[in-house]
């Protein structure tokens, strides 16, 4: 068991956001309910403002159905919003010239919940790690890049020759993080990166993410339903409910003085060993 002491995470308020959403609204058109009426629409995101700065870890929490996943899809450019703008490095990614979009795609990478389903089971890890370089047409010394990234996530080189089934969930999540780092991103978006992992492994992955923010100056967007895990990893948390951001604050403030009802619900939902032993956890 290792412990490190570290300086507090910087908030970097002086710096310009690297990735930003301005007044983003996303609606989906549903199936026709009645023959001669317009198809109903569902507003999934409602005028969202969201940003993250280099070297900053921001959290996004909310119940399922609150719009977290849609927000992730828009932040990563997988979906185009109906209204509003997604800015990377200050410029709208949907109207900028192709070279800026290419830069955006390289610079914003995602880590998903389940590493087992995000890695190709028939591909050796070395090949999996090279995929982003190939698909994003990144030139350079690929082998050197692979070794560098392996060091960053704390994996040994012999992992490259092995297949995903040879690893535990925690190691695979490290590999998924390594693959996300291959293109040299500025922003890492982690969508529930530890909820599929065992407790003893969760801490390893959370600590790794914190190290990457600190050492590489990455901007981290950490999305989860568990407020305590988000609070541990980030320095600023946005709370989502029904497609809106209802509260933004420092983790401790959200815990001690939650303002929005959604925040109170999330704080109230947290079970700890202490409260359980005190016998009032389920009261």
């Amino acid at each position, binding site marked *: 068991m290792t412990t490190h*002491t570290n300086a507090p995470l910087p908030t970097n308020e002086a710096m310009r956001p690297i990735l930003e959403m301005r007044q983003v609204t996303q609606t989906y058109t549903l199936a026709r309910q009645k023959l001669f009426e317009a198809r109903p629409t569902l507003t999934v995101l409602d005028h969202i403002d969201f940003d993250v700065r280099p070297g900053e870890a921001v959290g996004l929490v909310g119940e399922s159905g609150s719009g977290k996943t849609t927000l992730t899809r828009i932040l990563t450019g997988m979906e185009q919003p109906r209204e509003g703008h997604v800015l990377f490095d200050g410029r709208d990614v949907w109207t900028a010239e192709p070279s800026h979009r290419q830069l955006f795609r390289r610079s914003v990478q995602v880590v998903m919940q389940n590493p087992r389903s995000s890695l190709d089971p028939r591909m050796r890890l070395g090949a999996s790690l090279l995929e982003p370089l190939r698909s994003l047409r990144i030139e350079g010394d690929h082998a050197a890049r692979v070794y560098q990234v392996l060091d960053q996530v704390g994996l040994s080189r012999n992992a490259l020759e092995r297949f995903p089934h040879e690893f535990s969930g925690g190691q695979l999540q490290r590999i998924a993080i390594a693959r996300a780092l291959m293109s040299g991103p500025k922003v890492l978006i982690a969508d529930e990166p530890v909820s599929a992992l065992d407790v003893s492994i969760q801490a390893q992955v959370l600590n790794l993410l914190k190290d990457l923010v600190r050492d590489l100056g990455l901007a981290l967007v950490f999305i989860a339903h568990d407020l305590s895990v988000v609070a541990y990893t980030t320095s600023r948390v946005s709370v989502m409910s029904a497609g809106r951001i209802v509260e933004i604050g420092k983790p401790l403030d959200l815990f001690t003085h939650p303002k929005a009802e959604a925040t109170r619900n999330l704080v109230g*939902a947290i079970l*700890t060993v202490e409260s359980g032993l005190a016998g009032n956890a389920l009261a």
Partner: protein
Amino acid sequence: MSGANALEVHNLVVRHDMLTAVRGLSFALPVGGRMGLVGESGSGKTLTALALMGLLPMGWQADGSVLHDGVDLIRQSDRALAHRRGRTISMVFQDPLSSLDPVRRVGYQVSSVIRRHMKTSRREAERQTIELFRQMSLPRPEQLVRAYPHEISGGQRQRIMIAMALACYPQLIIADEPTTALDVTVQKQVLRLLNGAVEQRGCALLMITHDLPIIAAMCDTVAVMYAGRIVEMGPVGQVFRSPRHHYTRGLLESQPTMDNIALDGSSRLTSIPGMVPPLHSLPTGCAFHPRCAAATEKCVAEVPTLEGGTRRAACWHPVESMAEAAAS
């Protein structure tokens, strides 16, 4: 078997050819008692639960004895077991969507359990089903019984599973990660309902989960499993406040707490290095030794035994106390 125990497990071994997933498990759960079985994936906790119910997957075999209601469940015929499941022992699984039949109305699924075991009329079973739904705080129970599983939320489905488990007043409920698949804000409500129902009926509860806070909130005793063995057991308060096994301590320390959050990002969680060993290459001696900071040659050579009274730890160099460990 003594009349005081709802479940007595002696030296339970679960194996598949050369692989042994559960390696000699013994514990007793008193009537009306609540025990938590904690472990990570690969610790053998789910296979233990399935073995207790006689529901092991094809190829897996259980040995040892599981005494319940005066019989050894391991030596019962499939037919006899089927008669018990849902009657004297029932189980709540992790994913309610895959344990409910998608093409039958939920009310029918619950009332058919009642009709089968209690030999009541259809009308009476339906009446009891609505009453159970009401006890589970399900909205509009009269209408909900006619819903199909896909029409209702995950929390409601799990409450229906709990209603089904409670339907025939079992002596023992085995709950395997009952809230893991649910949204956090729903989790507490489902646990509260399960807690209340178990308390009111006085049935014993075996709670299987990787989530320590749930055990702390729901159980009186806890057994911590690692690589197919119990490494520590005892009253929940004692085990969680002053763990003796290094694995238990590591699990407790890797939980984010208010202290971690209060430090505003500057704290670090302690993590257990390494990973849970795969079944085909379990370490010798104490299975935790490759990941343990206190391991010595003795830990590599000899399997520590789980001896003592109610408070037991299978460790050659037990943690002295939390305070002392923090000071060193």
